[in-house]
C-alpha cells in the first residue's frame, strides 16, 4: 500500500484514503491522522481521566464532537433513576467544558446516536478518517470515509495526539449485483444480514470491506449506512462505499458541511477504486431473489429467510457450528423445524444506529398505518436522533405509530444494548431492528431476532414474524 506501489498501479478507495493520512510507518502498522473524533459518555471518561493524570490537553478540540446516547433514558420526563448513568453523563459535560469540546447533550435538538447525528450534521465527510469509541463507527463508511471503532486507550491517544496507530488492513471487495424484486419489503438490512450469513461473523476479519456494484449504488445514503453499520458484525475493521452524486447531494447545506463544499466535491469525485486496482479478496452476492431475513440464533450469521424453518443443528457439517447452533437454540428456546413465521414475539424495538433514520421510520410506518399492535405485544419506536424525531413528527409519523399502540420515544441507543432503562426481561422475545443478537445483549436472558424495520413493524401487528413481501 506504499506510495511506490501506488505510482505503478491503480489504488483501491481504501488505499487512497490511507495514503493521504499516513504520518509514519512502523512495519505493517501506520500512524494515521484522524480528521474527526466522535465521543460519547460511556467509552470516554477514563480517556479524559488519563489526559488529566498525564497533564495533557486535547490536541484538536475543534475536530472532536461529543454526544450522549448509550445511557440516556428515552423517556426524558422521568427523573434519571440510574445515578451511575447520570454520573457518566455529567462527567461528559464536565470533560467537554474543561477541554473545550462541542457537546450535543441531553436536551440539545442535535442530540442523538453518534452514528446518526454525524452524517446528519455534515460532520461525516468523504475521504476523511473518523474514529469513535464505538464499534458501529463503521456506519460512516457509507460516505467513503475510513471510519473505525476504537477502545478507550485509543480514544485517549486520539484526544492527545489526533492520531491513531493502525495495522494495515486487507482490502475486501463485496460485489453486490441484482435488483430487489420488492424493494419495500426487501431492504438494505436484508442485504447486509445475507452478506453476514454467507461470509460468517469472521468473514471480514482483518479487512476493510468495500461494498460495490449496482445493487449498492442503487441504495440511498441511509440504506448504505445500514449496510456499513453492520460491517463490524462480519468481523471487518470498516466498511466503505465510494461517494457519488447521492453522497454529495446528501451533504450539501448541512449544518457543519464545510463552506468550500463545491471545491471539496471536486476532490471527492476522485474517491473511487481505480479500474486496475487489485483487492486482496472478493465476495459476490446476487440479491435478485433475496427474501426478508430474520435471525434465529445468538450471532448475526445465524440468520435465515423468513420463508424458512428454524434450522436443525444436526444439518450443520461443521462440528463447531453445530454445537454453536445447539447452544443458540437452547438460549433462544426454539425447536428445530419451526417455521420462522410461527415464532411469536413479546416485544418490538424499532431503533438503533442500524435502523432508526427517517427512511426506516417512514417504511415501518407504511406497515403500521391504520393497524393495531397485537394485544400482549409491547412495541416501541426510538428515533435515532432528535432531528429524526422532529422530522418524523412533521410528517405525522408519530401519530401513525402512537395510534397503532407503539410507544414513541426520545432518541438514544435504547434497547440495542441493555445499558439504559430499555431492556428485555429474561425470556422475552423481541423483533429488533438493531445489530446484535448476542446472548443477553438486550438484557439478561432476553431473546433477540434481528430484522428490518418493516419486518419488525409487521411482527408488532401480527404478534409473530410475517413475510413483508405479502404486505406490499
Amino acid at each position: 500500500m506504499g506510495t511506490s506501489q501506488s505510482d505503478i498501479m491503480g489504488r483501491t478507495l481504501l488505499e487512497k484514503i490511507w495514503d493521504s493520512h499516513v504520518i509514519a510507518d512502523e512495519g505493517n502498522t501506520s500512524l494515521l491522522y484522524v480528521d474527526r473524533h466522535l465521543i460519547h459518555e460511556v467509552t470516554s471518561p477514563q480517556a479524559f481521566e488519563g489526559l488529566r493524570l498525564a497533564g495533557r490537553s486535547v490536541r484538536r478540540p475543534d475536530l472532536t464532537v461529543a454526544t450522549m446516547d448509550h445511557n440516556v433514558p428515552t423517556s426524558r420526563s422521568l427523573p434519571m433513576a440510574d445515578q451511575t448513568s447520570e454520573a457518566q453523563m455529567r462527567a461528559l459535560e464536565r470533560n467537554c467544558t474543561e477541554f473545550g469540546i462541542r457537546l450535543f447533550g441531553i436536551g440539545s435538538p442535535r442530540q442523538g446516536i453518534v452514528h446518526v447525528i454525524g452524517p446528519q450534521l455534515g460532520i461525516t465527510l468523504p475521504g476523511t478518517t473518523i474514529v469513535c469509541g464505538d464499534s458501529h463507527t463503521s456506519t460512516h463508511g457509507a460516505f467513503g470515509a475510513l471510519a473505525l471503532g476504537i477502545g478507550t486507550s485509543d480514544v485517549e491517544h486520539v484526544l492527545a495526539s489526533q492520531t491513531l496507530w493502525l495495522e494495515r488492513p486487507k482490502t475486501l471487495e463485496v460485489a453486490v449485483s441484482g435488483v430487489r424484486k420488492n424493494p419495500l419489503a426487501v431492504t438494505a438490512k436484508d442485504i447486509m444480514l445475507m452478506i453476514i450469513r454467507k461470509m460468517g461473523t469472521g468473514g471480514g476479519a482483518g479487512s476493510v470491506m468495500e461494498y460495490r456494484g449496482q445493487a449498492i449504488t442503487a441504495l440511498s445514503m441511509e440504506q448504505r449506512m445500514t449496510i456499513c453499520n453492520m460491517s463490524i458484525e462480519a468481523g471487518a475493521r470498516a466498511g466503505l462505499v465510494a461517494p457519488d452524486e447521492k453522497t454529495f447531494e446528501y451533504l450539501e447545506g448541512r449544518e457543519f458541511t464545510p463552506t468550500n463544499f463545491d471545491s471539496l466535491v471536486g476532490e471527492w469525485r476522485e474517491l473511487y477504486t481505480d479500474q486496475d486496482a487489485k483487492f486482496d479478496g472478493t465476495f459476490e452476492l446476487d440479491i435478485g431473489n433475496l427474501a426478508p431475513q430474520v435471525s434465529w440464533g445468538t450471532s448475526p450469521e445465524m440468520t435465515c429467510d423468513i420463508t424458512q424453518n428454524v434450522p436443525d443443528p444436526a444439518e450443520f457439517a461443521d462440528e463447531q457450528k453445530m454445537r454453536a447452533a445447539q447452544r443458540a437454540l437452547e438460549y433462544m428456546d426454539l425447536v428445530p423445524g419451526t417455521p420462522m413465521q410461527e415464532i411469536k414475539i413479546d416485544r418490538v424495538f424499532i431503533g438503533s444506529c442500524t435502523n432508526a433514520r427517517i427512511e426506516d421510520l417512514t417504511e415501518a410506518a407504511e406497515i403500521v398505518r391504520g393497524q393495531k399492535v397485537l394485544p400482549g405485544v409491547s412495541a416501541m419506536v426510538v428515533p435515532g436522533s432528535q432531528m429524526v424525531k422532529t422530522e418524523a413528527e412533521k410528517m405525522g409519523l408519530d401519530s401513525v405509530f402512537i395510534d397503532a399502540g407503539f410507544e414513541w420515544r426520545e432518541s438514544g441507543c435504547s434497547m440495542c444494548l441493555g445499558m439504559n432503562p430499555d431492556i428485555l426481561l429474561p425470556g422475552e422475545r423481541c423483533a429488533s431492528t438493531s445489530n446484535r443478537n448476542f446472548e443477553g445483549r438486550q438484557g439478561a436472558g432476553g431473546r433477540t431476532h434481528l430484522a428490518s424495520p418493516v419486518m419488525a413493524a409487521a411482527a408488532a401487528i401480527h404478534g409473530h414474524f410475517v413475510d413483508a413481501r405479502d404486505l406490499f
Partner: protein
Amino acid sequence: MSGKVVRYGRDNIDTDVIIPGQYLKIHDYEELARHAMEGMDPDFHSKKGSYILAGKNFGCGSSREHAPIALAHSGIKAVLALSFARIFYRNAVDGAFLLPIEIGEDAYQKIADGSEIDIDVGAGLVRDITAGAQYKMRPFPEMISKIIEAGGLFGYKPE
C-alpha cells in the same frame, strides 16, 4: 507466567457476554471484574484461572475496553485463542491489560480445561505442564510487540 486454564470450546465469544452492557457504567475495576464472563459462565470466578482458552474471533462485538479490563482484574493474564476480533485485541495491548495470544488448532484442541500452563513470550511457547506438551504461539506483529514491551500505548515512543 504459569497458571490455570479456563477453556471455552467456542468461537465468537463476544464482549457482551464477557461484560454485559449494564455494567459499563462501573468505573471501579475490581467491581467490574466481579461481573466478568457473567453473560456465559456464572462459575468463572470459582475456576480461579489465569488464562482463557477459546476458539475463533474472541472478543467480537462492542469496542468496550471494559472487556479486557474485567478479565485482567479477575486474574486473567492472557487469552489464548485461534483468532481475535481487532478492537478487543488492540484494547488488550494498548491498555496493557492482558496478552492476546494467537494459538494453532493443535493447542486449542489439546489443552484441557483446568490444565496448568506456562507462557514464555520470549521463546514464543505455550507449555502445557499438566500434559507435558508444548505449542508454538503466533508471534506478535512487530508494532504490537513494541507496545507490549513499552507497557502500553502511552509508554511507546516512536524512533
